[in-house]
């Protein structure tokens, strides 16, 4: 149920759930809630603390009951074992070097203000990417087939929806991770969670101190090995009657599997054997302080000319200096330092203007979303991305504030414009502009040509999207730090309409 709900969030195109419900569903997601807490210090984002406390009490129950990627692995395992004889698990020694190296690197670069490893490895965000990039097209296909069939019967309750743009890098990465997980699940159950996943490694460290934990009752256990062969974390050493609880994902399958009640889930009596751990033991508050001071020093690199287009006869290429980030994302620094590329905003955006990036933010911001004005433009009356973002990379923004948030500024290239090259009216840019920052002014004869009033431009990209020329004659260059636009000047039209007047014809 939970899993289906989660998947639905990432494939839905109808805004079926209100952002409040979505925020509720995502409350317990460890990394997003942690980042959002850093960003907002809001009580609403203390899901990660709850998870941490739960782990200290019961171990990594997050991994089995809350993590969508964990659930996805269980679903895959169940599907796989339907077709093949159920594979038996066997105790494996921990691969601590890889496990703690990844955790270490993740934390170190996080302290330096980069979320790259979380972006690439955080289980929630990976699940988001897999859902948004792999499952969503599938869902669209099913929906469109349904819409087509119903359409034949003149029923329009379903409508077709198109993948307006497709990021192959994002698709490729998601497919790669999905393939890797599929293979790991088949080979060694939850090996991803115990070797690659930084959240798993971190919670594993906490689980070493758990109050309740799984253990084998030496008086009852006869080392029959049944629990071990059912343990998808492969952490029960039945020979020595030991459980590596740092790797236990808390599925509790061993409890039901044991024929002689030899597996116990109870308060630990002995002091935990603390292995020599590196000093990466994370303390959220300390981390927050470190992070907050270091975030400011985060270095940004932005790929500049990702948008160069083909040219002919004296036309000028479009060169964007800065990538455009969603309203509420404050600045490229803030956004790239907090976004883990879960792609929930990509799925939720009604115009599909939000697309996964490749290197627009440099390597460190790989796959983080940006506004792609080739796909569409940012709807004036909408704040859905800021409402659903679970990490606070896009902070909640009121509609009125959004309408004045300047994401970038429109720049007009006269040499590319139809009015200049063909001496014919066009004005598609001005038509679409919600603030009339792009206005048509007299040019020659009766022709009108666009003119940009920068102060009231909010950089929504409507003009760029609508512009019919190649290369574009008008485009938005991003503001690396969002600014506040001026309100459009509003003058009441003073026209008296007298009902007694005759028709003007």
């Amino acid at each position: 149920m939970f899993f289906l709900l989660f998947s639905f969030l990432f494939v839905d195109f109808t805004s079926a759930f209100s952002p409040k419900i979505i925020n509720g569903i995502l409350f317990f997601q460890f990394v997003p809630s942690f980042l959002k807490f850093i960003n907002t210090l809001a009580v609403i984002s203390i899901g990660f603390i709850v998870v941490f406390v739960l782990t200290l009490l019961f171990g990594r129950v997050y991994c089995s009951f809350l993590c969508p990627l964990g659930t996805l692995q269980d679903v895959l395992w169940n599907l796989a074992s339907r077709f093949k004889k159920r594979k038996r698990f066997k105790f494996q020694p921990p691969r601590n070097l890889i496990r703690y190296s990844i955790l270490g690197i993740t934390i170190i670069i996080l302290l330096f203000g980069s979320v790259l490893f979380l972006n690439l490895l955080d289980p929630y965000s990976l699940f988001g990417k897999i859902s948004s990039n792999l499952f969503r097209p599938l869902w669209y296909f099913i929906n469109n087939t349904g819409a087509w069939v119903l359409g034949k019967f003149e029923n329009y309750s379903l409508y077709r929806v198109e993948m307006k743009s497709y990021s192959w890098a994002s698709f490729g990465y998601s497919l790669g991770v999905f393939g890797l997980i599929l293979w790991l699940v088949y080979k060694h159950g939850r090996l991803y969670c115990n070797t690659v996943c930084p959240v798993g490694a971190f919670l594993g460290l906490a689980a070493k101190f758990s109050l309740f934990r799984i253990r084998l009752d030496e008086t009852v256990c006869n080392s029959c090995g049944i629990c071990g062969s059912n343990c998808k974390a492969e952490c029960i050493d039945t020979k020595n009657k030991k459980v590596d609880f740092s790797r236990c994902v808390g599925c509790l399958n061993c409890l039901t599997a044991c024929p002689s009640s030899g597996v116990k889930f109870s308060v630990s009596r002995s002091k935990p054997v603390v292995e020599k751990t590196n000093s990466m033991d994370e303390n959220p508050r300390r981390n927050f302080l470190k992070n907050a001071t270091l975030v400011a020093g985060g270095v940004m690199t932005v790929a500049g000319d990702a948008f160069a287009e083909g040219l002919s006869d004296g036309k000028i290429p479009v060169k964007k200096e800065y990538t455009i980030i969603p309203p509420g994302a404050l600045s490229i620094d803030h956004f790239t330092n907090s976004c883990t590329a879960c792609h929930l905003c990509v799925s939720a955006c009604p115009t599909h203007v939000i697309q996964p990036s490749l290197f627009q933010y440099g390597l460190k911001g790989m796959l983080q979303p940006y506004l792609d004005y080739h796909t569409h433009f940012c709807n004036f009356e909408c704040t859905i991305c800021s409402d659903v973002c679970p990490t606070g990379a896009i902070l909640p923004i009121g509609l009125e504030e959004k309408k004045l948030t300047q994401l970038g500024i429109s720049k007009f290239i006269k040499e590319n414009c139809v009015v200049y090259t063909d001496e014919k009216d066009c004005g598609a840019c001005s038509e679409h502009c919600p603030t009339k920052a792009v206005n048509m002014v007299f040019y020659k004869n009766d022709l009108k040509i666009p003119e940009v009033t920068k102060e009231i431009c909010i950089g929504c990209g409507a003009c760029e999207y609508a512009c019919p020329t190649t290369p574009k004659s008008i485009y938005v260059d991003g503001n690396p730090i969002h600014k506040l636009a001026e309100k459009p000047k509003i003058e009441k039209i003073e026209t008296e309409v007298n009902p007694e007047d005759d028709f003007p014809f």
Partner: protein
Amino acid sequence: MKRRHFIKTSMGAGVATSAAIAFGNIDVLFAGSPAPADLPYDLVAVRNGEPDVMFDKAIQSLGGMETFVKPGQKVVIKPNIGWDVSPERAGNTNPLLIKRIVEHCNNAGAKEVYVFDNTCDEWTKCYKSSQIEELAKEAGAKVVPRNSESYYREVDIPKGVRLKKAKVHELILDSDVFINVPVLKHHSSADLSIAMKNLMGVVWDRMYWHRNDLHQCIADYCTYRKPDLNVIDAYRVMMKNGPRGVSVDDVVTYKTLIVSTDIVAADAAAARVFGSAPEDIAYIEKAAALGVGTFDLSNLNINRIKL
């Protein structure tokens, strides 16, 4: 009421059909609407009423909706639903007017009434904010999606000067009766958006028009299939910052409605309401030159109704 309607309509249909056969005007038979000569007026203009009341009066003076819609026919209504704005902003056709037109079509025995527009802003939001989806459905219309290219079929426009081909929404191609219901408003590049400009919303690739002489393409398209009836909503009129508008302060309440089968005459009359000379609007002149209709209102038989 229904039976009387039916008898009237079948008689009307019979007369129209025999007239069509007698005069050899096969187009009339195909389009399912009477030749302008059969109508008591070339153009009806109404003012000082609510949108629905003004339409009642206008259609009544043309012999009722039965003149245009025969029992069992499929009707497509094409409002302007271009923008994600509320009705007060006058960026979209008045939803009450659409509702009333749907009701008239159903009363005339239409088998099905469809409503759609190829919007500029995200279409589900436009359909909702305009309130057209809600009210049209209330009146029993099918509000149809527009967002996928697969709904559009390519057609030839042999008489077009610049626009030779266009991908047109299947409902425009497959319906018996086509009612065009634009809103009169200022337009930053086409000067005014009225009935002819509204037809940009039945094709898929609007941007081709913008790239290839907008005014000529607007006129060219009208040589392909003219609407059977044009109903121009000038209840609220956006006087500047069109076609999207910036605030309600762009809007003046004119409480006017114009109905005509001649799309050029309808646009000319609406231009006058706006305060512009029809000959100053390039596409009106170009359409007249292509023989689509006339913008010389002085020779038309106009019914002017003040409420």
